[in-house]
C-alpha cells in the first residue's frame, strides 16, 4: 500500500468525536472540584436550567454551518420567537402558531435569497438580525408577556433520576443525529457543504437543500424561543441576543468546521452543554467578581479551545 502523501497521520473518527466529550469532562471536573455538591440531580437541574434553549440554538446554527454558511441572526430570531410566544401564542394561539410557522418560512426564504443571488450569508444574516430585532420590539416593546400554560408545564417536567435538561439534551442529540447522519437526504444536505458542485452535478437541487437547511435552523430557533419562554415564563426583545455567538461556539466546540460540511450533531449538543456549564455555574463557583464575569466567559472559551488544539497536536494532526 503506497504511503499517503496528503498527511502522514489522520485523526481516527472516533478520537475526533471524543474531543467535545473531553471538553465537557474538563468543565465538569472543574465544577466537581470547586463545588462537589453541584454534581447532583438538583445541582444539574439548576446549572443546566437554561441549557435547553442554548442546545436548540446550537443545533439551529449547526444546520446553517452544514451548508458552509453562518447565521448571525439566530439570536434576535430566538428573541422574536420568544416574544411571539409570550404574547400571541398565549392570547391567540392559532395566530401565534401561524406567525411562528411563517417565521420558519421566512428563514427558508432567506436561504433561497442567499443561494439565488450568491450572497455572503454572514452579512445577509447580519441584516436579518436587525429585522428580527425590530420585529421583536414591535411585538413586545417592554419586557413582559406571559408564557402559555402548556409550555411552562413541558419545561417544568421533573423526570426521575435524570435531570430534565440532560434528558432533553440526549433526546435532541439523537433526533439531530438521526436527521443529519442517518437519513438518506441528510447525506445530501451534508454533501452540499462538502462539494456543492458535485452534488448539483448529481442532479440535486442546491436551492432546495439550502432552503431545507435554513428552515431547519428556523425550526430549531423557534423551539429555542419557545423553551426559553417556558423556562422564564416571560420574554423580552433582547433575550436571545447572546445565543448567536454561543451557538457558533457550541458547534465549533463540538468538532464542527465552518466550511466543508463537517459538523457533528452529537458534538454540537455536547458543546452546548459544555458552554452552558462554563458560562455561568463554573464562574460562580470560582468566585469571579461580576466585572470580570464577561471576560471570564471569553477566557473559558479560549481555554477549552486550546485544550482541543493541544489534544489534536498530540495525536499528530496538522
Amino acid at each position, binding site marked *: 500500500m*503506497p504511503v499517503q502523501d496528503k498527511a502522514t497521520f489522520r485523526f481516527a473518527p472516533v478520537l475526533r468525536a471524543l474531543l467535545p466529550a473531553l471538553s465537557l469532562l474538563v468543565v465538569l471536573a472543574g465544577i466537581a472540584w470547586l463545588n462537589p455538591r453541584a454534581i447532583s440531580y438538583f445541582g444539574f437541574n439548576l446549572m443546566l436550567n437554561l441549557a435547553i434553549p442554548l442546545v436548540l440554538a446550537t443545533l439551529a446554527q449547526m444546520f446553517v454551518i452544514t451548508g458552509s454558511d453562518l447565521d448571525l441572526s439566530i439570536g434576535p430570531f430566538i428573541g422574536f420567537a420568544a416574544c411571539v410566544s409570550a404574547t400571541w401564542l398565549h392570547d391567540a394561539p392559532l395566530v401565534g402558531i401561524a406567525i411562528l410557522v411563517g417565521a420558519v418560512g421566512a428563514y427558508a426564504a432567506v436561504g433561497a435569497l442567499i443561494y439565488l443571488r450568491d450572497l455572503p450569508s454572514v452579512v445577509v444574516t447580519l441584516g436579518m438580525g436587525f429585522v428580527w430585532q425590530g420585529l421583536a420590539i414591535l411585538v413586545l416593546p417592554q419586557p413582559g408577556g406571559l408564557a402559555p400554560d402548556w409550555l411552562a408545564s413541558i419545561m417544568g417536567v421533573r423526570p426521575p433520576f435524570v435531570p430534565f435538561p440532560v434528558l432533553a439534551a440526549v433526546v435532541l442529540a439523537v433526533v439531530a443525529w438521526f436527521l443529519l447522519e442517518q437519513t438518506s437526504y441528510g447525506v445530501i444536505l*451534508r454533501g452540499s457543504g*462538502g*462539494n456543492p458542485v458535485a452534488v448539483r452535478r448529481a442532479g440535486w437541487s442546491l436551492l432546495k437543500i439550502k432552503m431545507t437547511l435554513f428552515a431547519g435552523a428556523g425550526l430549531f430557533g423557534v423551539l429555542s424561543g419557545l423553551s426559553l419562554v417556558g423556562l422564564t415564563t416571560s420574554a423580552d426583545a433582547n433575550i436571545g441576543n447572546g445565543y448567536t455567538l454561543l451557538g457558533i461556539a457550541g458547534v465549533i466546540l463540538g468538532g464542527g468546521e465552518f466550511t466543508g460540511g463537517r459538523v457533528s450533531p452529537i458534538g454540537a449538543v455536547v458543546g452546548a452543554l459544555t458552554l452552558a456549564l462554563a458560562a455561568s455555574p463554573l464562574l460562580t463557583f470560582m468566585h469571579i467578581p461580576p466585572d470580570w464575569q464577561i471576560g471570564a466567559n471569553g477566557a473559558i472559551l479560549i481555554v477549552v479551545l486550546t485544550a482541543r488544539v493541544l489534544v489534536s497536536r498530540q495525536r499528530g494532526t496538522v
Partner: protein
Amino acid sequence: MDEAAENFARLTGIKKHFGAVLALDGVDLKVGAGQRIGLVGHNGAGKSTLMNILAGAYAPNEGRLFIAGQEQPAYSVGRAQQLGVRCVFQELSLCPNLTVAENTRVTHPRLRGLGWRGKAKTLIAGKLDEIFPGHSISPSALVKDLGIGQRQMVEIARAFTESETPARLVILDEPTSSLDGHTAAQLLSFMRAAAARGVSFILISHLLGEILENSDIIAVMRDGRVVAQDRASVFSREKLVHAMGAEEAAAPVAQSGTTARPRSAVRVRARPRRQTDTREVLAREGEIIGLAGLAGHGQTDLLRTVFEASSRRSPDIAVSGSVALVAGDRQTDGIFALWSIADNITIRSLGGLTRNGLISPSREQALSDHWRDKMKIRTPDMRNNILSLSGGNQQKALFARALGSDATIILMDDPMRGVDIGTKLEVYDIIRREAKSGRTFLWYTTETDELSVCDHVYVMRDGVIVADMDRSELSEAAVIQSSFKGGD
C-alpha cells in the same frame, strides 16, 4: 437509421462559444456501441468542452446530438444520466466530508429509505472489487482520509455503479493520472472487458502510449474540431503528435554526457524522514534531479519538506539558496483565481519590481510580457483572468512564476500532469536552458519519459530512496524495477 442504431452517440456540427472565445468549431463525432474511443488533443483543443456537452453539462450553440438513435434537443445532466452516460472528469466530484458509501448515495437518488446505507456499501464495494481487485478502500472511510489515487478509484468505481440505468457510455478524462501503474492497468483491462460487453468509452489521455494501446478508434482534436478519426491501428505516436499540430519533436532521448557528476556547489541535501541508510538526495548547481517511483510514495512529502527547510531549520535537510515550488495540483496549491495572468506570475517576484517602496506597474508588465513570450503562453492579454487560460497554459503561468523569481532552486511537484505534449516539450527546453545558466531543479514526475531530461534520478518507494541512477544508466525498466517491491 441503421447507422444511428449502431452508434450509441452521434454529434454533428457542434459549435460552442464562451463569450468571444470559440471552443468548438463544428465537431462531428460518432461513438459506436462497445467502442473505446481515444480522444487526444493539445490543451485548448476543445476536448473538455466536447465532453461536457456529451455529458449534458453544457448546451451547444449549434449542432445536433443523438443518443441511442434519438435526437436530444433538451439534453441535460439528468437526461444524460438516465440514458446511461457517465463521466469521470479531471476535477474529482466526491464530497470529502462524506464516506465512500455516502458519496455513492449522492449519485443514486433511488438509494433511500430503510437500509439505504447497507445497499450503498454493497454497491460500491462490489464495483471496487470488480474493477480494482485487491484494493484496500473501506466503504465507511471518509473520502478526505483517502489519498488522491484512492479517491480516483472511488470516483471511477462509482461511475460504473448502477442502481437504475446501466452505464452505456463512460467518459474518462485522464483517469490514470492519479493512479499508479498497477491500478491503471487494472482500470484499462476492466475497460476492455466492459467494452466487450457493449459499453462504450471515451478515453482522454495525454499518454500517447496508453491511447494507442487501449483504443479501438482514435479521434484527434485541434482548434475546436475533430481533425482525424480512424482505427487506432492506423496511428502511431508521431502521427498523433503531427495531427495535434505540435512540431514534430523527437521523444526526449537520453543525451550522452559524462557519467561523473559535475563538481559544482551542492544546493540541496535531503534525507527522507524514514530513510534508515545514508542515502540522500543531492542536488547541485545547474543540475536537474528527478524523483521517480510510483505515485504517492513520499516524493511530494520530500519536496514539501525541502520547501519548508528553506525558511526553517530542519535536521535532515540542508538547503542553500532560495526555493520556489511549482505545484502539481494547481487549483488548490497554485492558482489565484481572482487575479490576472500577470498578477499570478509576478507574485513571487514583487521584491524586485518595486520603485520607491511601491510596486511599479511598468516593471510588472515587463516581467509578465517577458514570460509570456518565453513560455509561449497563449492569450490575447496578460491582464485577463488566469482562468481564461487552458489548463496547460495555466501550468505554464505557474512555471513562469517560479522561474521569474530569484529562486535558485526550483521544486516541481509533478506539474505536467494532464498537460499536452506540445506544452511539455516547450517547458523541457526552458528547464534545460535554465539549468545551464545555473539553476537547480528537483523534479518529481510520474512519467518515466520525463526522467530522461534529468541528470540524475532517485527512485522512491514507501517513503525512502531505494535507487539512484545517472542519466546514462537510466531506463524505464530500471525505474520500474526499483519502484516495485521485489523487483530489485
